[in-house]
């Protein structure tokens, strides 16, 4: 079974409302980045779909997403067909955050990412669709493509639309400016003068299908996800976990570097990201291969970036030529990379796309020409046996149903996690810096893994799938309040992504395996276990952490399971 990419891909961005419009302008060396000024006079560049607006029933981002999804359906002449199962995967970091207030939303509000996804499906003629929503920082787009291709190959779906979307909202702009990650000039990836990223926004959609497509099509082959287990915002200093993801994506596709056409990396233009990538690409022997970053054209479109950049890769692969990395002059990373200020010939049967993001996450995927596509090794366990479970709810912490604090003290959330932390006898100065979602996940994982015998390699290869309903909204609300008061804090902003909880667990337990955060309308343990075996590569995992971690205002609920795959 192969995961073919439907020939028509849709892209809505500052370049206009189609991928072909964008490709034509990119090919002429035109950027969609434009100068902007922040409230305090700070200058920066961003790529914005300025002509897009909200409609009577849809938010601006929903309208962009629905247009992208509908365009992809129509362009691929897709129609619902009896006997064929269709799915939709959304990839976003912040969804409708531009519409959010500094207060908890009402039930069914579009601020909840799943609600946004459901509305886009309904507006596209897919009423009743139960979309999969991946919210995994800046690897979301690549991770959604990897997960989608696995779901096709493993026979879960016949067709999957992957929709990637995010806005360059005031929320994210404020956050990245506060992080001092934004350049005053257009971003210049890998260049010696680079000093930060440029933000962007887009909605894009591709169709993954098991229907054999004609020559000229492409196929998503192997993919891999990994975690740095190093820091929640700073990338790995060695690049090793990204290198591992690239190596595994290649290995799964039985591909060798020699036949590769090119690699399109994340290339944000920040000092540390690009340096980390250079080390990773060097480690996998790709330093001499044609490389580019598309951020100087589209900016960093966050949850959309991995997906929409893969669309450009698809075009480049078929043409055998890659776009220059605009504004590149001289290499400013410690390892040799073949970055070009001009177009580069890039012949080969496949390319590699990578992404890395906050929470220490990395993703890599192989895209190949359909005529030369290979079967992907899909020998991954599909069953799991429960080893232990932890629940945190109603002022109690239960390990396999047993109350571990073992007293009758009534505790609110703050007291519960603080007392649990002290009861565990842990010494970690980072604990009290975490937001509540991370504190709860951290305590849960601590009880889940305490006393479990595992060698270092077994810990390292552990896989994690976590889910919740409101993503990081609990902290988003606090951050919006800070923005309104002019006291926005970088230490708060970093927690406005739900997968940071996975990052904190990975750092604490040195876990570098496959990991993914998804958003669902309600807790469904059975479904989550199924997703873990179908969306992750568990071929190396001796253990899987799978579960629910939800915190919003006064409500909180954690249920984590330690599972043994087989």
């Amino acid at each position: 079974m192969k995961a073919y990419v439907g020939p028509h891909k849709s892209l809505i961005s500052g370049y206009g409302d189609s991928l072909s419009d964008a490709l034509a302008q990119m090919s002429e060396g035109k950027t969609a980045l434009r100068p902007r000024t922040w409230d305090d006079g700070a200058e920066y560049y961003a790529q914005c779909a300025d002509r897009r607006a909200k409609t009577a029933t849809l938010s601006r981002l929903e309208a962009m997403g629905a247009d992208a999804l509908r365009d992809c359906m129509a362009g691929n002449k897709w129609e619902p067909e009896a006997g064929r199962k269709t799915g939709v995967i959304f990839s976003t970091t912040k969804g409708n955050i531009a519409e959010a207030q500094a207060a908890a939303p009402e039930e069914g509000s579009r601020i909840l990412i799943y609600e946004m996804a459901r509305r886009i499906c309904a507006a596209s003629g897919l009423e009743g669709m139960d979309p999969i929503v991946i919210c995994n920082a800046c690897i979301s787009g690549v991770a959604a493509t990897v997960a989608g291709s696995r779901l096709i190959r493993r026979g879960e779906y016949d067709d999957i639309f992957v929709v990637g979307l995010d806005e360059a909202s005031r929320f994210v702009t404020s956050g990245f400016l506060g992080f001092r990650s934004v350049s005053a000039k257009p971003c210049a990836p890998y260049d010696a003068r680079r000093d930060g990223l440029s933000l962007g926004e887009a909605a894009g959609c591709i169709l993954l299908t098991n229907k054999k497509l004609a020559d000229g099509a492409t196929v998503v082959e192997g993919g891999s996800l990994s975690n740095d287990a190093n820091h929640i915002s700073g990338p790995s200093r060695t690049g090793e976990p990204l290198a591992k993801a690239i190596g595994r994506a290649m290995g799964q596709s039985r591909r060798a570097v020699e036949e590769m056409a090119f690699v399109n990396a994340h290339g944000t233009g920040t000092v540390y990201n690009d340096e980390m990538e250079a080390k990773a690409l060097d480690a996998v022997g790709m330093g001499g291969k044609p490389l580019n970053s598309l951020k100087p054209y589209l900016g960093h479109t966050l949850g959309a970036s991995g997906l929409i950049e893969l669309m450009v890769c698809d075009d480049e692969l078929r043409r055998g030529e890659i776009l220059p990395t605009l504004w590149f002059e001289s290499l400013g990373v410690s390892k040799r990379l073949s970055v070009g200020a001009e177009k580069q010939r890039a012949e080969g049967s496949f390319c590699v796309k990578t992404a890395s993001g906050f929470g220490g996450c990395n993703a890599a995927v192989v895209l190949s020409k359909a005529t030369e596509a290979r079967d992907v090794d899909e020998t991954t366990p599909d069953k799991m046996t429960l080893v232990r479970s932890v629940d945190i709810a109603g002022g109690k912490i239960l390990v396999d149903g047993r109350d571990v604090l073992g007293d009758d003290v009534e505790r609110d959330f703050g007291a519960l996690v603080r007392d649990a932390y002290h009861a565990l006898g842990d010494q970690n100065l980072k604990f009290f810096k975490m937001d509540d979602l991370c504190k709860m996940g951290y305590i849960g994982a601590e009880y889940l893994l305490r006393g479990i015998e595992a060698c270092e390699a077994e810990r390292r290869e552990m896989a994690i799938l976590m889910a919740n309903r409101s993503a990081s909204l609990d902290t988003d609300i606090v951050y919006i309040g800070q923005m309104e008061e002019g006291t926005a804090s970088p230490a708060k902003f970093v927690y406005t992504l739900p997968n940071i909880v996975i990052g904190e667990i990975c750092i604490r337990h040195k876990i570098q395996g496959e990991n993914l955060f998804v958003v669902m309308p309600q807790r469904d343990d059975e479904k989550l276990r199924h997703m873990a075996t179908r969306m992750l590569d568990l071929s190396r995992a001796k253990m899987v952490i799978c579960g629910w971690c939800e915190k919003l205002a006064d409500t909180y609920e954690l249920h984590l399971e330690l599972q043994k795959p087989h």
Partner: protein
Amino acid sequence: MKTTKETLKEQIIQTLNLEDITVDDIDDDAPLFGEGLGLDSIDALELILLLERGYGIKLSTAAEARPIFKSVNTMAEFIESNAKE
């Protein structure tokens, strides 16, 4: 009256959520980053904001902050000679 150093230590503890740390735990001359309090790049950004919002001192680059954030002593010294109140 509290000294600049004492006030600064309280502010550091509060800003960086060092819940299990007291003013007495922080040596005037001990390194703030790496060892000691184990501060990291995000904490550095918070300290830059502390200088900006608490003392009206704006640092133009993060690199400028490095020697200033060496210890409570270096920070207090910098604040005393640059604060705009």
